[in-house]
């Protein structure tokens, strides 16, 4: 509403600048240790993408530039690597990301029923987020937990030997 006012525009610009993504002090210390683990700085791309995802929740273009800046490489080099790894979120996601494994061993033991149940229970299709932004439901390839199939992860935690009842208990505990 004060669009015409020079001062307000400056204030808005200042606020925008203030929002610019930066690594926290602790993160920067961690980055120092990470970079020192490799003779070539570019090797730290994957660890820094993991760290950035932990800090900011997802990896947008600004984060790519931030990582490139820290490592002294071109943003396109970070972008190229990023494009070949499925673990990183390129867009914001729900507070809880539920990933259901649908690979062979899990599917043999009912992963599809679990997934269908979650879709009905959460009222969303796979690969989408609930309207309140609480949960993103995704399918995922083999999680390396086939002996305890079916398996899903919520954020970084594995939930194994699932049944529909067990899924309900887990959702209740998590607060979904």
């Amino acid at each position, binding site marked *: 509403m004060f669009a015409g006012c020079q001062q307000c525009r400056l204030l808005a610009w200042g606020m925008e600048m203030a929002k610019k993504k930066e690594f926290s002090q602790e993160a920067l210390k961690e980055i120092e240790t990470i970079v020192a*683990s*490799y*003779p*070539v700085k*570019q*090797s*730290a*791309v*994957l*660890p820094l*993408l*993991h760290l950035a995802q932990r800090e900011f929740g997802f990896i947008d273009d600004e984060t790519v530039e931030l990582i490139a800046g820290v490592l002294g*490489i071109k943003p396109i*080099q970070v972008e*190229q*690597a990023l*494009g*070949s*790894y*499925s*673990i*990183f979120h390129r867009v914001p996601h729900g507070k809880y990301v539920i990933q259901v494994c*649908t*690979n*062979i*061993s899990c*599917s*043999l*033991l*009912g*992963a*599809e*029923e679990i*997934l*269908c149940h979650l*879709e009905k229970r959460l009222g969303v299709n796979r690969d989408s987020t609930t309207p309140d932004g609480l949960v993103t439901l995704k399918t995922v*390839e*083999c*999680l*390396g*937990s*086939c*002996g*305890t*199939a079916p398996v899903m*992860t919520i954020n*970084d935690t*594995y939930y194994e030997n699932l049944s529909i009842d067990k899924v309900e208990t887990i959702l209740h505990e998590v607060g979904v």
Partner: protein
Amino acid sequence: MNERILLKNVGASGSHKIDAYLSSGGYKALEKALRTLKPDQVIEMVKKSDLRGRGGAGFPTGLKWSFIPKGVQGPRYLCCNADEGEPGTFKDRVIMENDPHLLLEGIALSCYALAIETAYIYIRGEFIFGAERLLSAICESEARGFLGDDILGSGFNLKIHVHRGGGSYICGEETALLESLEGKRGEPRLKPPFPASVGLYGRPTVINNVETLANIPYIVMNGPEKFASIGTKRNTGTKLFAVSGHVNKPGVYELPLGVSLRRLLFEFAGGMKNGRNLKAVFPGGSSTPVVTPEHLDVPLDFDSLVAAGTMLGSGAVIVMDDTTCMVRIALRLTEFYRHESCGQCTPCREGLGWMVKVLERIEAGKGSPGDVELLIDICSDISTKTLCPLGDAAIIPAQSTIRSFRDEYDLHIKTGGCPFAPECPATEGSLGA
């Protein structure tokens, strides 16, 4: 009683801590090597033990090590392949989460043998718990002088780093792993040159699987003869078999190489779930050709399984009962490999997408006569025409299920539907239950 080399500590409380590891004789092999053995003697022991790589290819470890050029100045590296990603495989995770010091000792011995001072454990991105366990174990071990500078006063230095992957199957291929570790796209390199001469950062590099390295302390401690007395000729030692699917007791079993599939499934893994009949088994992960009940007495070792037309692979035994639709299995796995294809080679990138389309229409009852021949054709156009083994791996589910269950494919086409109708109609490429 079967001797356990790899899982001997697993199951004990606090098995991941250094005190538990030391009290069961841990780091004694490292001490023995540093005090009494020359690096070449360690290599010789591993050669004599006939240890073969446990990651899938079964290549002799000692021979692989001998490709590292001698007398080259400058750094050289060891990469531990912990990118366990082959569907059905969950064995390395057990070692890393429950007995991380066993792996560290194996790495330390291997690095001592090969005069390597820097090692990277490339662990798959989802194994956050395993990565944390390894990191704490490295800290503990450095604090006690088993890793770091001047280990046990021997002058040997070793730094081990943990590097988490990004959820890409192809990074389990050793040159893609190196690219990924260098911060690039996980895309396999053209070989030669082989990593032993031009590897990580262009330096000589040895890449070994977790389970392979975890065998080294036993070989050094007990001697190669003792190790070679377990298993069968040229297939020595024990193997971790990761059993999943329709069995009563899925899990990781450590048994001598050469144990029969029958014993593994019925004596150890508790037999078939719900008393149903066995239909098919992937004996070494989803990219090894399926075997049928007539193969139950084939010894599970590298050579016997090759003779039976399949492979030991990673030792991931995926068991399917008679309610399983083999077309769905082929479809789901081909979709997986299409998803994981890095896209460098046209036959793999385009061929797998095409195969998925054909398999989808057969499964949906819309297949036409000639579709199976088309699949066989595409498989032969992918086979051996790619940079890395992913192309050859990816065609195996379809190729081997067509070979063993051709009638099932024909039935889908003839009747215009799947005889094993899914319970959830919304599914696309899933297997039902």
